[in-house]
């Protein structure tokens, strides 16, 4: 009995930037195995029996949190959940103290969502200074406007599943690029896996740094859609916008919203994605979200498999 051996180059998953192409490929390949497992009558394997995971959500979440929780449970990990509301964070406890206290209860992996960009990197760096917490591994489940690596990986997995490969595929990311951690992580992962990436949105929502990332920029949605194989429609992140970036939601929707009429008028069939939560009628209309073009619910299903792969591969590194 001989088995090939391979592992990730990192102990934490803090962002797509910093990973190698081989890491992404290993995660996507392992996720295929887990996708088969979650379609079995008994969707559970015993791999993480002796691992405890804390889900620390300092910011609201439905999909990511449920998806991580299911992934952990299907790997037989023990889990504890923490959300900022109703915790001692409201009494003024710092992030590092909260983390150290949770880790003192013998937790192995922390899955963290936080509204501050760089929170996961900060925590991973700080924990080295605390001998009792140094063993912990951090998974970034979204840090402010910075990165959301597991979303990018499940998006890559879903595109690969639908189109066979990412090599040479054209992907346009539409909408609020400036405030979207999904956009940034997707840009890194898609480029690393060989796809061509374009961003599309109003000038005010396209950050200046995009020119340094080797991206195509387009301000006309129709032109962008005619170019692409896949359109990833992002949500307008009103909660992160302190300024007005466009006059009204209605105007945004008329310029950058995807409706069935526009989709049907294109010369080719494209794949439509959305990381959720959808604002129906703003970035895409209901008939597009529920159409055969849309792989939105496949993305959600694949999210569990991809997160299982990440947890499994990281736990194997400890």
């Amino acid at each position, binding site marked *: *009995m*001989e*088995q*090939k*051996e*391979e*592992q990730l180059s990192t102990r934490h998953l803090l962002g797509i930037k910093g990973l190698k192409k081989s890491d992404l490929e*290993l995660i996507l*390949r*392992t996720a*295929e*195995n887990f996708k*088969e*497992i979650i379609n*079995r*009558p*008994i969707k*559970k*394997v*015993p*791999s993480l029996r*002796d*691992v405890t995971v804390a889900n620390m959500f300092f910011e609201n979440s439905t999909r990511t949190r449920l998806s991580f929780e299911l992934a952990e449970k299907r*790997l037989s990990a023990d889990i504890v959940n923490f959300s900022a509301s109703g915790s001692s964070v409201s009494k003024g406890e710092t992030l590092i103290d909260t983390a150290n206290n949770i880790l003192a209860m013998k937790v192995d992996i922390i899955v963290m969502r936080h509204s501050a960009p760089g929170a996961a990197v900060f925590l991973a760096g700080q924990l080295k200074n605390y001998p009792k917490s140094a063993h912990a591994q951090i998974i970034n489940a979204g840090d402010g406007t910075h990165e959301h690596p597991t979303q990018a990986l499940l998006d890559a997995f879903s595109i690969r599943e639908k189109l066979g490969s990412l090599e040479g595929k054209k992907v346009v990311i539409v909408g609020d690029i400036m405030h979207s951690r999904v956009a940034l992580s997707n840009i890194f992962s898609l480029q690393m896996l060989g796809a061509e990436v374009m961003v599309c949105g109003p000038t005010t929502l396209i950050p200046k740094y995009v020119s340094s990332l080797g991206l195509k920029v387009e301000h006309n949605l129709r032109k962008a859609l005619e170019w692409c194989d896949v359109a990833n429609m992002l949500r307008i992140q009103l909660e992160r916008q302190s300024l007005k970036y466009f006059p009204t939601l209605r105007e945004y929707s008329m310029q950058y919203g995807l409706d069935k009429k526009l989709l049907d008028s294109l010369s080719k069939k494209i794949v439509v994605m959305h990381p959720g939560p959808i604002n129906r009628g703003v970035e895409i209309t209901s008939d597009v979200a529920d159409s055969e073009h849309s792989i939105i619910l496949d993305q959600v299903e694949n999210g569990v498999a991809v997160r299982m792969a990440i947890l*499994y*591969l990281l*736990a*194997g*590194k*400890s």
Partner: protein
Amino acid sequence: MIFLIIFDKSFPMENKVLLDSELFTITINRLCYQLIENHTSFDQTVLIGVQPRGIYLSERIHQRLSEITGSKNIQHGILDITFHRDDFRRRDELPVASATEIDFVIENKNVILVDDVLYTGRTIRAALDAILAFGRPRGVELLVLIDRKFSRELPVQADYVGTSVDAITGQKVKVKWKAQDGVDEVILYTPSLNIK
């Protein structure tokens, strides 16, 4: 580690052929007839090869059984046991998972697990665990091409054995397959010098 690799190259292992290609074919045939003797019909009996290398044996057995019985409906699946291993987080390198393909119901069926070499018994322990995720079989039997005696770490015995070998730790049994390795052959490698 580097020392060992250099050592290996400068002092090649001694090889002993346990099964040559002729004996290999005879053994596969015998195993098939033993299966037929015990099961008569394969309506309620399924073959499951254990990844990664048990699948070659199960494919061969499946092919030969189909020829002998003339039946085209003998069900055959492959099972990956990576996520059921008992050494996860206890070794430096992480084993890479392979595919599992069982697209039939195993509930109440007789399952014949197939692997090339039975060594410590830990793979089979994991396979028994993994197979239960697909339902409750009526019974499970084990078929192996090579039974390495004296190395068992768990109480596992095979029901059908191609050949047994008295191999000790340090020796290596390698099953080669025509399709993958160019020849049907089983070889026992023995280090010619004691590395300790």
